[in-house]
């Protein structure tokens, strides 16, 4: 079995016997859940915090004889999984929240006609956007699509829910979503391994069977949801904890359950406060909720991202307030539950829950950080040194950004750069020289560039460049390029080809020459695609600074839509594969703070391997992290940075 990724502990999923307790992260646990359910087909597009589910399944697929693929994007992944489900097989499709938007057109369509084999969609949200550009609450999309959703709070539940979701899907004959969040997917917890279902199924798609999308099927989906709600009503995923009867009740979903429990313990409120933990946020089991609203005087909502549970419960209460009496609600929608970014933004934590509980109960709690006033906390935060995002040492994107920055300055006329999604989204930040004028979602950069380039009649004369990743190119850029070709757009598309889907953990893509399970695969060449669309195409090396600038300038000036491919392997992948030459600094030549340098390598270029030697007041290289790309050798104005041996 070839190890593709660096997945600490994942082997326990298959190494240990059922009944054993093992330490896994939430994504590994969900992978185990799918294994235990006897999954036959797995497809995904990587995206943090979801990637490891399929990463792990790709590692073990050979042992269990099921199919795994990294798909070119999320909608293709879900369509493939649905195909397996239509043939009666169990299929899993994983994606990050943003990917659900990509898959959503198909999800809302397919859900009408339903499916056969268990079809489970794992969507991982990223509250606070730790590795995303936006926060998202996929539960709202599940509800809008009328797809039942489960929401685990712990690693164990992540396994349990994924496993059970296959059963549920087959019961209702429709897809089921499991909503994870970063703190479930990327937390580690102990789970007890269950048996792996060894059912052998044949793919069976009879010609008489039909899966269609028609308006009349909405009624069927409605019935399916009712059926799901009935199953949820008796599901152990919905439970309560703490005081049986309490004035103060916490309703919580996801990791909020753990924060609430910890807050209660730390405030010694277990006997006085009840926690209600629905694990099935959509459709929310009405009777379960009403039974716990009954007798409550104050209700607090603790959930990740948006007030989904809160709004549903408030709606139930509105319909049944006569029987339930006066209840006061405290949540995100009411503004009471709020972190440093204010209500409905940012991530939950124990401190937020504790603060709300202290406010409601007057319970004393003396931990210095909590007893600080908001102003004191703010000033404490302000005293921390700022830490910006940073491209890796030797990252070819840094070189590409510097090339484009240089070329556009030389070209003049206020060139516009539209960015896209990947590691290279950092082109919108200091580490990418604040190059991007726009940054939205996968494929958006090329579409926006096309639109801008059609504004000549309104006086828009600026050069337009879009920078897209290789994986993004396959995922979402090709339609925008075709559109541009068709509608005579005029911009330069620069594809940053580093050979892998780097940001999400070096998953292969159609240009990598390998598939998800490490087999050799046909390379779908970016340049061949671009050429076949009729574009002028050139492959350029961003490490050859001067030539690359000339290539950009030449291409910008050509009329129409052009594709320039900046090809250099991802520095992390390359540094693993080959030993590169060592870079050193002739410190006696370093100009440092003087005119002609102004500490360019550390202050502007910003590669983490370029460091400042305070003692000698000169630049230095951190040999532990330098990957030997040599770009700073070319950029050093004093010729002080050199290859070892060239001193």
């Amino acid at each position, binding site marked *: 079995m070839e190890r593709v990724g660096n997945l600490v502990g994942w082997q326990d999923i298959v190494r240990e016997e059922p009944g054993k307790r093992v330490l896994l992260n939430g994504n590994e646990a969900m992978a185990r859940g799918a294994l235990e359910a006897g999954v036959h087909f797995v497809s995904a597009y990587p995206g943090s915090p979801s990637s490891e589910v399929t990463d792990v399944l790709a590692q073990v697929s050979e042992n269990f004889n099921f199919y795994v693929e990294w798909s070119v994007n999320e909608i293709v992944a879900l369509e493939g999984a649905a195909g397996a489900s239509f043939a009666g097989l169990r299929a899993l499709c994983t994606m990050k929240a943003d990917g659900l938007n990509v898959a959503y057109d198909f999800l809302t369509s397919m859900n009408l006609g339903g499916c056969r084999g268990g079809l489970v969609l794992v969507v991982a949200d990223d509250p606070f956007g730790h590795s995303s550009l936006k926060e998202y609450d996929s539960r709202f999309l599940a509800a809008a699509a009328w797809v039942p959703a489960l929401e685990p709070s712990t690693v164990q539940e992540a396994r349990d829910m994924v496993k059970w979701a296959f059963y549920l899907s087959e019961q209702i004959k429709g897809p089921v979503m499991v909503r994870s969040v970063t703190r479930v997917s990327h937390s580690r917890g102990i789970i007890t391994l269950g048996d792996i279902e060894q059912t052998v199924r044949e793919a069976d798609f009879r010609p008489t069977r039909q899966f269609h999308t028609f308006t009349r099927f909405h009624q069927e989906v409605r019935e399916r949801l009712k059926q799901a709600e009935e199953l949820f009503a008796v599901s152990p995923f919905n439970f309560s904890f703490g005081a049986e009867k309490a004035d103060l009740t916490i309703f919580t979903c996801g990791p909020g359950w753990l924060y609430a429990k910890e807050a209660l313990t730390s405030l010694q409120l277990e006997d006085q406060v009840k926690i209600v933990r629905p694990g099935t946020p959509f459709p929310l089991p009405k009777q379960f909720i009403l039974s716990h609203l009954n007798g409550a005087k104050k209700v607090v909502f603790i959930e990740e991202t948006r007030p989904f549970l809160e709004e549903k419960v408030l709606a139930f209460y509105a319909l049944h307030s006569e029987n339930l009496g006066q209840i006061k609600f405290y949540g995100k929608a009411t503004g009471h539950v709020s972190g440093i970014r204010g209500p409905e933004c940012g991530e939950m934590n124990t401190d937020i829950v504790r603060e709300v509980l202290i406010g409601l109960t007057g319970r004393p709690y003396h931990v210095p950080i909590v007893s600080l006033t908001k102003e004191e906390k703010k000033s404490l935060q302000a005293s921390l040194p700022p830490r910006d995002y940073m491209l890796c040492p030797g990252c070819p994107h840094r070189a590409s950004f510097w090339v484009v*920055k*240089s*070329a556009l*300055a*030389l*070209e*003049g006329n206020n060139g516009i750069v539209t960015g896209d999604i990947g590691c290279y989204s950092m082109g919108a930040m200091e580490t990418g*020289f604040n190059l991007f004028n726009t940054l939205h979602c996968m494929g958006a950069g090329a579409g926006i560039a096309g639109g801008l380039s059609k504004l000549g009649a309104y006086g828009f004369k600026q050069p337009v460049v879009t920078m897209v990743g290789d994986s993004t190119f396959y995922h979402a850029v090709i339609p925008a390029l075709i559109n541009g070709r068709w509608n005579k757009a005029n911009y330069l598309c620069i594809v940053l080809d580093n050979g892998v889907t780097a940001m999400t953990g070096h998953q292969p893509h159609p240009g990598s020459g390998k598939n998800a399970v490490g087999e050799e695969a046909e390379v779908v060449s970016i340049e061949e695609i671009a050429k076949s669309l009729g574009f002028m195409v050139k492959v350029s090396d961003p490490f050859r600074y*001067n030539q690359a*600038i*000339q290539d950009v*300038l030449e291409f910008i*000036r050509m009329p129409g839509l052009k594709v320039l491919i900046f090809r250099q392997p991802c520095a992390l992948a390359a540094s693993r594969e080959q030993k590169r030459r060592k870079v050193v600094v002739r410190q006696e030549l370093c100009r440092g703070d003087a*005119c*002609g*340098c*102004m500490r*360019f390598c550390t202050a*502007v*270029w910003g590669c983490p391997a370029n460091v400042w030697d305070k003692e000698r007041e000169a630049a230095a290289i951190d040999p532990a992290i330098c990957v030997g790309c040599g770009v700073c050798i070319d*950029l*050093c*104005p004093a*010729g002080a940075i050199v290859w070892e041996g060239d001193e």
Partner: protein
Amino acid sequence: MKVLPKGAPQLKEEVFGPGLCTACGGCVGYCPYIKAVADRVAMIYPCNCEEGQCYQVCPRTLTDLPFLRARVFGERALEFDKFNQDSLEAVLGVCRALYFARAGTAAGNFQGQYGGVTTALMRYALTTGKIDGALLVGGKPAQPRPVLATTIQQVDACTGTKYAALPTLSMLYQPTQNTSCLGIVGRPCQVTALRKMQQVGAGAAGQVKLTIGLFCFWSLGPEFIPWLIGKGLGLIDKMDITVDDVLFKKGEEAIRQNLAEIRSFIKPSCQLCYDPVAELADLAVGSTEYEADWNTLLVRSRNGEDLVKEALQQGILEVKPYPKERLPLLKQAVLAKKQRVLQALKAEKERENSRVGYLNLSPAEINFYLKL
């Protein structure tokens, strides 16, 4: 030399921002913040150096002309309070001799512009070891590039005027291990920048021992080359701006273009140029606009005079007196240009008595031009 305590931010604000960069190359190549590709120069990233060499050497920042003249010409430097209205040097700058000149019979075989004086002299200086490298502009008119020529063949590959403004001075920041004594052919703005660079010790400017300045009333900005390529003239061998039009030569084929269209590419910085005849050069060379096979040659420095004398003796050069009837035309052209620029610069706020825009001049010089 008077310099202002300014740096890159002010260079951006006062020169690059308003489009006044002459593309001389004096600021290019010393630091990573200013970059040139072909005839384009730009500050690609803000540099916070408050007192920068880039600002000091720029020919469009404070330029202390009286000081620079004194450094180049010593006691021959211009003294405007002693000039009368008819003085030749008041208008043309220090002038030891003024000729019609052309390459002589012993100059060798090459294709220069007009009389080929510049190429002949550079070849001669290189052959005789007076210099061991020459900073020139090579390539065809649509693909010009700075060249450091160290052989006759390399010099010959640079013959002919390129009307795009190339930042050749940037070559002075590249280590020139094999050269110690350089010659340079440049536009007047480049000669000024070079003289400033020599004062502040920038790059290898100190190695430059022979400066041939070209007469230049304007040069063409970066849009010119794309226009040329767009017109299908990307492969032309030679270009000449005549009184009426522009002549492009490709082999034996001659193509003429309207001058007015080409004038639209004139660099904005040229409109503020006070020095169309390379006042600070050792020798200044231009067309005659009279006899196509001859150049105008203005001998300025002692150094230049020595070279010309030797070249005449060796048959490298051939000269004849500057035609009397042409002199008023030359004077008038230069005078009008200087007056126009002073008027334009004067419209800017004066900060000192002796300053007009970027120029530091003696009050006598200002009066000389503005009262004529």
